[in-house]
């Protein structure tokens, strides 16, 4: 999940109850990469039904904001890909606003190595406007481990984030893990739970009150190898977390070139 500069703001803010959370891409990554000669286009639609209602500094609140993110991922070979994001936000009275762009190269352990779990490493760098995130430049590195066994699937993303420009630069590296566990009810319907968190700086873990914790019961629909559907409703139990978020991901794979 990419939530731009979320927990860092919490720690930086002098008033603990004031928080900022921007939900542009809410997804636990699996270890697979997009196949070569294939482009994956995803639309992430996230609506904050009950979230931050006040400005945090100059940053817009996200309550009732609709965030649409276009993610385009190109498979390079059987062990790498590059993703590109276009973040947008729509909120009453503001219209559709461009928020920023990110670039995300990723490498994985090739399947041919026959490891017992899937492993990949993603890194993401990008810019976002200060109106939508106080840190305008940031960087993330995300190890990914997953495993499918029978009808069960799990994935762990212990991501680390670092602000490059903005008020949170001095806070160092932020720990934002996410986890997914799911079960195949049928060939086409998979249900599970996704967990997203931001514990703050790895050298100064925030108190539970100031941590962001979200749980999304989610459904994946496997209607076709070319399509991806994910739908979930997130519950944020801590004060520093948006309380209700509805998310939806629709993805489509396009194959290019001659199959050899």
């Amino acid at each position, binding site marked *: 999940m990419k939530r731009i500069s979320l927990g860092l703001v919490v720690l930086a803010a002098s008033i603990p109850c004031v928080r900022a959370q921007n939900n542009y891409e809410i997804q636990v990554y699996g270890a697979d990469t997009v196949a070569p000669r294939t482009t994956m286009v995803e639309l992430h639609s996230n609506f904050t039904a009950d979230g931050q209602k006040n400005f945090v500094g100059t940053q817009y609140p996200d309550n009732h904001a609709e965030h649409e993110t276009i993610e385009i991922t190109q498979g390079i070979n059987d062990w790498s890909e590059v993703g590109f994001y276009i973040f947008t936000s729509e909120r009453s009275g503001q219209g559709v606003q461009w928020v920023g762009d990110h670039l995300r190269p990723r490498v994985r352990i090739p*399947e041919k190595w026959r490891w017992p779990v899937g492993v990949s490493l993603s890194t993401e760098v990008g810019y976002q406007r200060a109106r939508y995130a106080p840190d305008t430049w940031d960087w993330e590195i995300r190890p990914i481990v997953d495993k499918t066994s029978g*009808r*069960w*699937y799990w994935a762990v993303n212990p991501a680390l984030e670092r602000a490059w420009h903005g008020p949170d630069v001095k806070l160092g590296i932020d720990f934002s893990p996410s986890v997914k566990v799911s079960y195949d009810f049928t*060939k086409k319907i998979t249900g599970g739970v996704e967990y997203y968190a931001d514990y703050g700086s790895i050298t100064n873990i925030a108190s539970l009150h100031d941590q962001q914790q979200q749980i999304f019961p989610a459904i994946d629909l*496997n209607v076709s190898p070319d399509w991806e559907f994910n739908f979930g409703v997130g519950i944020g139990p801590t004060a520093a977390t948006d309380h209700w978020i509805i998310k939806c991901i629709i993805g489509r794979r396009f194959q290019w070139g001659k199959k050899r």
Partner: protein
Amino acid sequence: MLDNECMVGAGDSNGGALLRNFTGMFTSRRKFLRRASFFGASVALSGAVQSCSPLFALNQAGAPAPDYRIEIAEIEWELSPKKKIRTVAYDGQIPGQLLNLTEGKPVTIEIVNHLDREEIVHWHGQWIAVAADGAMEEGSPMIAAGGSTLVHFTPRPAGLHWYHTHAMAGHDLKLGLFTGQSGALHVAAANDPGSYDQQQFIIMHDWEPYYSASGDGSLMVMYVCGSINGRMLGHNAPIQVREGQSVLFHILNASATEPHWLSLPGHRFKVLALDGAPVATEASVETLRLGPAERVTALVTMDTPGVFVLGEPRDEFRNAGMGTLVEYAGRSGKPTEPRDVELRWDYRAFADPNTVVHKPDVTIPLVFTSRFKGHGALDQWMINGKSWPNSEPIKLTSGLRHRLVFDNRSTDDHPVHLHRHNFELVSVRGAALSGVHKDVVIVDAGTTVEADLVANNRGDTLFHCHQQDHMDSGFMALFRYS
């Protein structure tokens, strides 16, 4: 008529089998034979000998010396200088030794199992008795861990066949046909004149299997590399030819699960036989398709001098090693690879132009379906809604023509194989044909193939998909003579 239910007896004249398991107590062939004689004599003196006792027949026949000896053991094998694998193989080599047999001439083969688990060897394509066939589901005995077996049978029919393990692999990709336990079994017709200049055996195999997500949502088996005759492309001895020669290729796909295509740039294959059986029309094709366990016998006229790769036209397979070089005398340089080849294969190309389809006596529908078991699991396979071993035997009546209707309602292609018999294809995708006899046929996903089986070899007969992961997940059924 080939009915050999009572396969053991003096003379063993009807394709019978002498087969017996012995345990690891027999540590050498000499001890084995001595102990066998003693045991046989003891049984005879006790008066408990049954007329069909394999051991009794063995002694009556004077304990014939084996014509071949196959040793099953673990080996380290070099597919290329940079790719060594540990696997189980026959006689310390991949593929196992070529067994050159003569149709109608009885053969005795000793099998020594050096493993710490039971094994079994199937004589694929041979019309022999259950005890010799090498399928535990039919009742063939396993070869005990550390034990030995003598197998005796009369080879028939002629053609390219093969021998391989018939042990279950389950989910273990280091067992069964994922290992190197396979070899060519060539049965020469007694009076085959052989109108060719040289013959070459091409045995394809895939190595280092792993599970991967498939397009249809379940796991499938993929491979790191492949080989022809046990070596990856560039590391096997080139096939040396001269311009104008006729080369008879005996080609076998010994892969556990993977169908393969084969091309030789600038040349065409004149297909003479499929699964060892001569075809009605010897059509020339640019590319061969072989499902797992399928065989093609084809003549190639060497009329395009150069250096070529005989191999998979699909880059990912050829780059993984599935190929071998063909070099014309006096030619050198970079080999021409099979690229941009149209992958087209149709059994009907080899059919009799004057289709003659006989009316069947019995029609047996065989519907192939699968059950989803999770995105991280193999599908469970079913024939007529039942998975092996929870299925009832399908009845055959000796002498009758049975129309087998292979109705593949799944999203996978299936190379289905019938033991101890072959069948004649009578329709593929609704188009009638005749004159193509096989013991393995690929039934493409969502299609129907019909084949006629004349029941003429009594005894339980196994039918299964030859993909190891499918047969181990229920895709088997037993035909039983009524």
